[in-house]
């Protein structure tokens, strides 16, 4: 009832009394056009099409069928590879996160007053971060041979890249009060970092470290495919032999493992942070 009254009244109301409608900002439209243009251009360049979803679904169906008929026995038979993946992830996370804490101290202007050195470390870290984990996997597999060692080394680099950036940004944002207190008490560079900075960043640092550990399980699969040992190597072999039943089992098991480790990580985080 009242709605009707309002809508008929609108016709007679003096519209000039209304506030003017804000005009859409041109920058918004410009941005939108640019985004659409880039998207279309990219799609054309990589010949992107969804057509196979409708025409070639049957071609994939056979493989998918084998995928969903997993050979569970295989997932258990390769338990050594699972354990190896876990060991690799743990060792790399411990070493990588330790080094990352140290490097992030050097790459923050709060803890490293020397501008040249701090900028230098910042640059090194962004170079470390810009290489994908697969590149590290390939390089270390070439340097120390295929196997767990290459996987550990590649993951360490990957972990340093992620954690050092996050932690150094956290250090940049700490409260300078405790630092001034440490300076006033005559603390050395290391003492002030240890007693004024570390306690402040510890909660964030811990959660970054756990986050990196969660990533490691997934990343070690990828690195294993290019020669880093563990479950990735198994996936590579099974893929080359078109053993989709085995692959299916491995992937479902991986899914469960990642899920469980996420839970463990959440549990630890709740205890620590």
């Amino acid at each position: 009832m009242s709605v009707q009254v309002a809508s008929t009244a609108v016709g007679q109301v003096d519209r000039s009394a209304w506030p003017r409608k804000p005009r859409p900002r041109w920058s918004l439209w410009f941005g939108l056009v640019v985004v659409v243009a880039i998207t279309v251009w990219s799609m054309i360049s990589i010949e992107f099409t969804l057509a196979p979803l409708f025409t070639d679904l049957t071609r994939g169906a056979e493989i998918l069928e084998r995928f969903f008929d997993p050979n569970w026995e295989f997932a258990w038979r390769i338990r050594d590879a699972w354990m190896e993946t876990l060991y690799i992830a743990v060792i790399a996370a411990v070493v990588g996160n330790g080094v990352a804490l140290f490097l992030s101290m050097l790459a923050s202007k709060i803890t490293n007053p020397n501008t040249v050195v701090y900028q230098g470390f910042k640059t090194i870290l962004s170079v470390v971060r810009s290489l994908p984990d697969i590149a590290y996997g390939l390089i270390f597999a070439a340097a120390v041979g295929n196997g767990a060692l290459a996987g550990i080394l590649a993951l360490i680099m990957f972990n340093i890249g992620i954690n050092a950036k996050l932690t150094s940004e956290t250090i940049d944002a700490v409260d300078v009060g405790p630092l001034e207190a440490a300076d006033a008490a005559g603390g050395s560079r290391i003492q002030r970092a240890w007693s004024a900075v570390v306690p402040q960043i510890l909660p964030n640092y811990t959660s970054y470290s756990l986050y990196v550990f969660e990533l490691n399980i997934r990343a070690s699969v990828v690195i294993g495919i290019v020669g880093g040992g563990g479950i990735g190597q198994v996936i590579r072999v099974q893929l080359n032999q078109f053993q989709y039943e085995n692959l299916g089992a491995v992937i479902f098991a991986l899914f469960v493992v990642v899920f469980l480790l996420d839970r463990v990580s959440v549990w630890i985080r709740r205890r620590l942070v």
Partner: protein
Amino acid sequence: MARPIESRRRTTVPGSRPQPPSKTRKTIGFVAGTAVIVACLLLVDARWENLSELPGNLGNYVSLMADGVLSNPLEDPETGYWQRAFELMLESLYMAWVGTMIGAVVSFPLGFLAAENISPRPVVLIVRQILNAIRAIPELIFAIAVMLPIFGFGPAAGALALGVGSVGTLGKLTAEVIEGIDRGPVEAARATGARQLQILRWGVVPQALPEVVAFWLYRFEINIRASAILGVLAAGGIGSLLSQLFAGTRQWDRIGITLVVIIVVTIVVDLISAAVRHRIISGGKQQLVEVAETSSIPAAS
């Protein structure tokens, strides 16, 4: 600065210091953690003796790579190497971009369905579980399992795998942003008699969009790296070139050039993307920049 001291003075009676908190749990945790790490070190079947070869080998590779990078790029084999690396890096960028856009378009409505203040509880639970499931699987697995059989080898399959992989994280982050919005505009929209969809359009979307778009850009940065991984499965892009180079005779000069292209292009795109993210997020509200910077990174995977 002075306040904590004052308050302590007021609450503490001289001579009755509180007991220090028990350290037993901390110690147990520390010992357990150390035990796990030592067990891993002992059980892993790594050839640690090869570690001694690492510095020599790496030094050797780096000098070979430097040769390739520093030799005149206008001369014959090098020109081709640079060109090919740039072309394929560009292809990786295209893959990453298309993948991000697919992820963005699909995850946006899912984010609404997974937000507790928008959708009914059963829907939220189901959609959340789907998003969690997607997040648990690496893109690579999507590519192996679904995309390559149906789409065949090529960048289109890679882009689709990246897109599906992005949906998990982006959907979760979008839901979190939506759950964090201010109720005010929603109530205002409802008070004017807006229908449910209009409330979402005018009360929710304007609040959530800047942060959500910043997450999209952040995901694009991640997808650039992820697209390199997919390249190993012949999904095109720079990863294909890398794995070919390593599988063959390992021309380190050419590998060096390829790595330099990856590093430079990735850093430049990261810088542009970070600048745009800051611009979108700040848009007058400077304090939000820090919030997005710290919250976006650990949550994305």
